[in-house]
C-alpha cells in the first residue's frame, strides 16, 4: 500500500516538475511550485519524517508562495523566451544528471539496516537522547542540541538573506514614512466576509504558532515552523486590513530589532555556556541538573529561531509590497 502511495506521489511530483519547466506564465509556475512542495511534504509524511513535512508544508507551500507572488509583482507575469537554443545547457544537465545517477548506484538500498547512516550516530541519538537531552521528540533534541551548530548556521542564513533582501530592495521607511502617509483604502476593504473570517482566524493562527513553538519538544514543530506560521498570520492581517494598518501593529523597526534579537539570543546562549564553563552551545551547564539545562537551552534557542524567522519573513513581505506600491 505504501509503495503505491509513493509511486503515485512521485509520478505527480515528476509531472509537476515538467509542467513547471514548460509553463511560461509565472503565476501558474508559482502555484505549481506550491503543489510541488505539498507533494514532497506528503512524501516526507509517508517516510515518517513529520517535522520535515511540517516545515516543507509551512515554508514551501505557505510563505514562499506568498513571497514569490510578491516578487512577481515586481516583474512581468510572463517568462521571456530565451533568444538562443539552450542546447549546451541541456547537454551539461544531461551529463551531470547521468553522473549523479551513476553515483547513486554505490549508495546502499533505501532502508538497509547496515547502511552507514544507521550505524554512525543514529543509534546514539535513538538510545541516549531521552537520557542525555530529554525531549520526547527526538528530532528536536538532534536539531537543537546535538546539531546546535547547524541550526545556528541555518538561522544566520535566514537572517543574512533577510538583511540582503532589505538592502537590495531598500528600506522604504525613509522614502515614505507609513504614519505620515494618508491611510489608504485597504486592499480588500469591500470584502466584508473576508474581514470577519480573517478576524476570527488571525488570533487562532497566532495561537497555533505559539503552540507549535512551545510544543516542539513533545511533537512535530519548533522555531522554524512557528516563526513561519506567526508571520503568515501577520501577512494575512496586512492583506485584509491593508499594509499601513499592519505596519502600525508590527512596525518595520520592531521587526529589524526582533530579527537581530533572535540570532543574538541563539548566539548568546552559546556564549553563556562557555562563560559557565562548558563548550559552545553545551546546555548542560545552564542548570544544576544537565537535563534541566538542556531543556532550558533548547527552549531559549527555539525561541531565538522562531523570533528571527518571523521577523525576517514579515520584513521580506513588507519590502516586496512597499516596493510594489512605490513603483506603481
Amino acid at each position, binding site marked *: 500500500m505504501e509503495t503505491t502511495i509513493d509511486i503515485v506521489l512521485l509520478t505527480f511530483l515528476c509531472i509537476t516538475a515538467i509542467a513547471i519547466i514548460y509553463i511560461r506564465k509565472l503565476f501558474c509556475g508559482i502555484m505549481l511550485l506550491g503543489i510541488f512542495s505539498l507533494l514532497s511534504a506528503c512524501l516526507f509524511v509517508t517516510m515518517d519524517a513529520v517535522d520535515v513535512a511540517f516545515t516543507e508544508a509551512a515554508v514551501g507551500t505557505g510563505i514562499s508562495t506568498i513571497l514569490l507572488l510578491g516578487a512577481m509583482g515586481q516583474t512581468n507575469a510572463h517568462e521571456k523566451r530565451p533568444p538562443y537554443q539552450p542546447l549546451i545547457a541541456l547537454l551539461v544537465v544531461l551529463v551531470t544528471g547521468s553522473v549523479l545517477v551513476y553515483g547513486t548506484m554505490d549508495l546502499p538500498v533505501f532502508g538497509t539496516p547496515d547502511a552507514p547512516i544507521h550505524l554512525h550516530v543514529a543509534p546514539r541519538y535513538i538510545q541516549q537522547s531521552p537520557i542525555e537531552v530529554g525531549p520526547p521528540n527526538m528530532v528536536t533534541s538532534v536539531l537543537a542540541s546535538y546539531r546546535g551548530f547547524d541550526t545556528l548556521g541555518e538561522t544566520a542564513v535566514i537572517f543574512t538573506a533577510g538583511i540582503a533582501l532589505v538592502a537590495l530592495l531598500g528600506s522604504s521607511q525613509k522614502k515614505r514614512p507609513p504614519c505620515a502617509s494618508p491611510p489608504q483604502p485597504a486592499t480588500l476593504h469591500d470584502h466584508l*466576509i*473576508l474581514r470577519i*473570517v480573517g478576524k476570527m482566524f488571525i488570533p487562532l493562527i497566532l495561537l497555533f504558532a505559539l503552540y507549535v513553538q512551545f510544543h516542539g519538544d513533545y511533537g512535530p514543530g519548533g522555531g522554524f515552523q512557528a516563526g513561519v506560521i506567526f508571520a503568515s498570520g501577520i501577512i494575512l492581517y496586512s492583506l485584509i486590513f491593508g499594509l499601513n494598518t499592519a505596519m502600525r501593529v508590527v512596525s518595520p523597526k520592531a521587526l529589524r530589532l526582533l530579527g537581530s534579537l533572535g540570532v543574538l539570543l541563539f548566539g548568546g546562549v552559546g556564549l553563556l555556556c562557555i562563560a559557565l564553563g562548558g563548550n559552545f552551545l553545551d546546555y548542560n551547564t545552564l542548570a544544576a541538573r544537565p537535563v534541566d539545562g538542556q531543556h532550558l537551552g533548547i527552549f531559549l534557542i527555539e525561541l531565538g529561531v522562531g523570533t528571527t524567522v518571523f521577523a525576517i519573513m514579515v520584513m521580506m513581505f513588507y519590502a516586496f509590497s512597499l516596493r510594489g506600491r512605490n513603483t506603481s
Partner: protein
Amino acid sequence: MTILDITTALCLTAGCFLGITGGFGIYRLPDFYTRLHASSVTDSACAFLILFGLMLQSGFTLATVKLCFIFFFLVLSSTTATHALAKTARSRGLEPLLGREDKR
C-alpha cells in the same frame, strides 16, 4: 463488519467520488464560475465526508477532536476562499458564460 464500518466505507466512497467529479469538473467545465463550483464541491462536501468517515473510525479519542478542529477550519476557510475568488472575479468584470453562443 459493524454498522460503523459500513457507514465509514459509504462516507469515504462518497467523498472520493465527489473528489474525482470535482477534478473532472475543473478540467471539463467551460468557464471560471462553473469551474469554481466544481472545485468548491471538492473543498467542502468531499473533505467533510472523508473527515466524517475518519471520525467514525477514531471514536472518542484525541484524534477525533483534532479532526473536528480541521473540520471547522475547512468549513470556514474553504467556503470563504471560494467566496473571495468569485467576488473578486465578479468585481473585476469577468462575466459568467450564459448559455452556448450557437444556441442563444
